[in-house]
């Protein structure tokens, strides 16, 4: 209507040029923390941790444990280091 301040409705469904990609807004860890603090829905994520039992000569096991202790590393960390070295040849 002439002289009307009301903006016209955008009824154009073929031209969607008013929609553009957007840049990131908030840091993700902050988003996660705030959602975690209120969410009523639980995590369904399977844990990435597993367990391994080893049986073998006491001397070898003691050597491995001593190695970890000396280097202040968990068993799994030391195992990974040893495997990486082994693969490097």
């Amino acid at each position: 209507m002439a002289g009307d301040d009301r903006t016209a409705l955008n009824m154009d469904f073929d031209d969607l040029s008013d929609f553009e990609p957007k840049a990131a807004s908030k840091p993700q860890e902050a988003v996660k923390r705030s959602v975690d603090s209120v969410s009523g829905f639980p995590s369904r994520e399977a844990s990435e941790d597993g367990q391994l039992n080893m049986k073998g000569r006491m001397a070898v096991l003691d050597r491995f444990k001593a190695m970890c202790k000396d280097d202040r590393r968990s068993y799994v960390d030391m195992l990974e280091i040893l495997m990486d070295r082994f693969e490097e040849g």
Partner: protein
Amino acid sequence: MPVITFANSKGGSGKTTSALLLACALSEQKPTTIIDADPRHPVTTWSKMDGKPSALTVITNESERTILDEIESAAAKDPFVIIDLEGTASRLMSYAISQSDLVIIPLKEQQQDAMAALDVIQEIHRDMKATRRQIPYAVLFTQSRAAVKSRTAKHIASQFRDNPKIDTFTVEIVERDAYAAIFTIGGTVRDMNPSKVNGLENALGNIEAFRDEVIRKLRVIREDAPASEVA
């Protein structure tokens, strides 16, 4: 701007079908990404068949830990990002909701779907508190009968439609052969052979009406948003 999440904590409510129909329809006009966050990966499976539109990117979600990253990169690349979720109440769903400009809650006109939809609405309200912003949402009836509705269907639908606090799509995703066919044939409804699929024209009309109502809602949401939130 828009990240659109399809969420209902009950399976079989029509999330994947309606998400994919919208994604394909939007990609006809603008580059669109759909994030497949259902561990059964139905959209990823569909995308490996022939006929995926070139303007549509399919991202397969890795885990709850990666979803925010995936949404952020998709939204920086494409104007439209669609997220299809698993039919489970999960923290992954909450993370996706927290990043959404519109949450669409698909449901069949059945009590179980309706109750799950209400759980999702409650979770959206909790996520609004967490993000300190409005997260618009709307209920979408799916798999509805084009002809006569049962009394139960009418009873369920009216409780949502008559509730002024809950936005409900006028359009319904009607039960159609073409919608089931996209998952067995691949490609989009638009590219289907009319001699192989019944009611193709009605299906295309239904999809177009759905896409137009989504666009209309997104424009209203943008108008209503405080200046700081407008992308």
